[in-house]
């Protein structure tokens, strides 16, 4: 019977050596990825980028052609490969980034690298390649985690870069990674305060007060709007891009691996996520309306980014609510009353976030939740559901009235 790779030994100079050991690693020295040059007229930069990409392409192809054993020795022990993959995940253009047309020869290389990095990560996330090429699942999970082959930011980057076009494969990858190594779920929980910290720091930039208490961020009437309308356009743009990236990253991650939502419920994260995001997005949109755009064509782009961020925020909130309340109810969980209470709490807590709520209602009508709850929790007091429904209707009417008002002007 074939042994798993982690239990195999080979002869090296007469010495019994583990098959998975640094001594079997090849000296490849992978290069770091850099984003394609933005200026199409800079021939030297383009040539250098193509040369770099060609080396990366050739090295990654060699890696993917290696037999299972050699591949894993390289993947575990070659730090230049770790940095190469990480650099691609960090700096490769996102599907929602501003699109600039690349010269054909650059685009071909970029497409090739995009596929090769994905295949490398896919192979790294596979503990059983064939009947004879496999790693003990528990050891595989430890190898991934202890060598930082994957971590939460990398997994999120993967979802952002590949989730739109290669979701089924990516979902399998993430499911296997989280299943074989539960510590990634702990890391995800530990990442939540940082996500809120990111939003808090943007709140501060927007002149919003963000308490650590679970209350909604309060808008300051003095410094905030003034600084947002007068700060340099590049700084303002960075702020919008940052907010947009934050919302879209989380959305893509949950879209690919919705089971992650189960680990993102603690400390009222869904509510804080909504409150901070809404405060930031509406403040930035007001600033867009107030800023002087003479000589700039960026306004529609930034507005589109904020719209996308708002929709992503609603998607994230829905996923967190659905996975933690409605889905277990549908699956006949043993604690329906508790789940129902959690649903009520989450929905009631965001009734003030009218913009997010209006978008949420379009994407995920409350009536469907209501039907499901009535079906899964017979005998519930529907007064609270009615209260939520009224709140949502008010938010939608408020939005409609605002728009009508503007149109009437």
């Amino acid at each position, binding site marked *: 019977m074939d042994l798993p790779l982690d239990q195999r030994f080979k002869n090296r100079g007469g010495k019994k050596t583990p098959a998975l050991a640094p001594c079997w690693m090849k000296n490849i020295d992978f290069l770091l990825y850099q984003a394609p040059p933005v200026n199409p007229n800079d021939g030297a930069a383009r040539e250098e980028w193509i040369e770099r990409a060609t080396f990366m392409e050739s090295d990654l192809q060699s890696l993917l052609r290696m037999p299972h054993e050699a591949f894993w020795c390289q993947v575990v022990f070659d730090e230049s490969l770790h940095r190469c993959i990480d650099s691609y995940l960090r700096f490769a253009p996102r599907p929602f980034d501003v699109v600039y047309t690349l010269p054909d020869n650059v685009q071909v290389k970029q497409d090739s690298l995009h596929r090769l990095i994905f295949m490398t990560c896919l192979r790294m996330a596979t503990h059983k390649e064939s009947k004879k090429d496999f790693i003990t699942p528990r050891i595989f999970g430890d190898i991934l985690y202890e060598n930082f082959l994957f971590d939460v930011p990398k997994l999120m980057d993967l979802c952002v870069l590949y989730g739109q076009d290669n979701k089924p494969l990516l979902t399998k990858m993430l499911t296997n990674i989280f299943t074989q190594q539960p510590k990634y779920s702990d890391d995800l929980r530990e990442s939540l305060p940082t996500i809120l910290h990111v939003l808090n720091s943007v709140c501060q930039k927007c002149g919003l007060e963000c308490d650590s208490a679970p209350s909604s961020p309060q808008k300051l009437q003095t410094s905030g709007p003034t600084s947002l309308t007068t700060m340099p356009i590049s700084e303002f743009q960075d702020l919008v891009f940052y907010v947009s990236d934050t919302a879209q990253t989380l959305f893509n991650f949950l879209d690919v691996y919705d089971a992650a939502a189960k680990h993102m419920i603690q400390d009222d994260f869904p509510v804080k996520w909504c409150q901070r995001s809404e405060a930031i997005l509406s403040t930035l949109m007001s600033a867009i309306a107030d800023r002087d755009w003479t000589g700039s064509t960026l306004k529609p782009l930034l507005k589109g980014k904020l719209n996308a961020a708002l929709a992503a925020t609603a998607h994230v909130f829905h996923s967190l609510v659905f996975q933690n309340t409605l889905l277990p109810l549908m699956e006949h969980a043993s604690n329906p009353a508790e789940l129902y209470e959690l649903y009520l709490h989450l929905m009631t807590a965001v009734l003030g976030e009218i913009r997010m709520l209006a978008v949420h209602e379009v994407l995920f009508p409350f009536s469907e939740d209501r039907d499901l709850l009535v079906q899964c929790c017979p005998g519930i007091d529907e007064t609270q559901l009615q209260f939520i429904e009224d709140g949502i209707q008010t938010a939608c009417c408020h939005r409609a009235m605002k728009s009508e008002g503007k149109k009437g*002007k």
Partner: protein
Amino acid sequence: MALPRLTGALRAFADVSASDSEHFEPDASAKLRKKRQQQAMRQSEEGLSWQQLVKVIKKQRGTEEKVTRSLRDLTQSAHDIVGEEASSDVIESGSAFLFEVFCGSEHVSHHHTTKLRGMFGPFPANAATKACRAVNRIAEWIPDDVLHELLTQNSKTSVDDSTEFGKNLKFHPWKPQSSEVYEWMDEESSDEEAGSLFD
């Protein structure tokens, strides 16, 4: 400059990533030069070697001065193309590579420059022209059948026919997110100043 990203903040502050990940190469050009040299060395292991070439030419023409001079011209051109600080091993394998590239070609074409740039990076054009001339002189002194044998014997061994992981998996290439996805959010307001859902 890198765009601000959520995952960048998570790497920096969430304590869930490796702390030693470097994303800045202090001397990126030096790294590229090193890669070129590595590639030239690999080429020498897989392709025609300088020793093989010298052995064949000396067998055909002995140690005539014009032969020695042409070989020297070729290595000098390789030196100019590969770079000042390259080791003699790298220069010799670069010379053998130039021989393979230019053998049978009277002029330096776009195809040649692409091939050379792929191997060595940017290089002086006149060095390529000199190398091409030297290769043609040397090739003339080798009978066709010997030359054919010399150029084909190594190419057979360098083919890597192992299957690349994922080659048969369906992969959808990168495409930008359509901006139309969120256009519905603007529909309720035709007034540009009113702007989407944020009024």
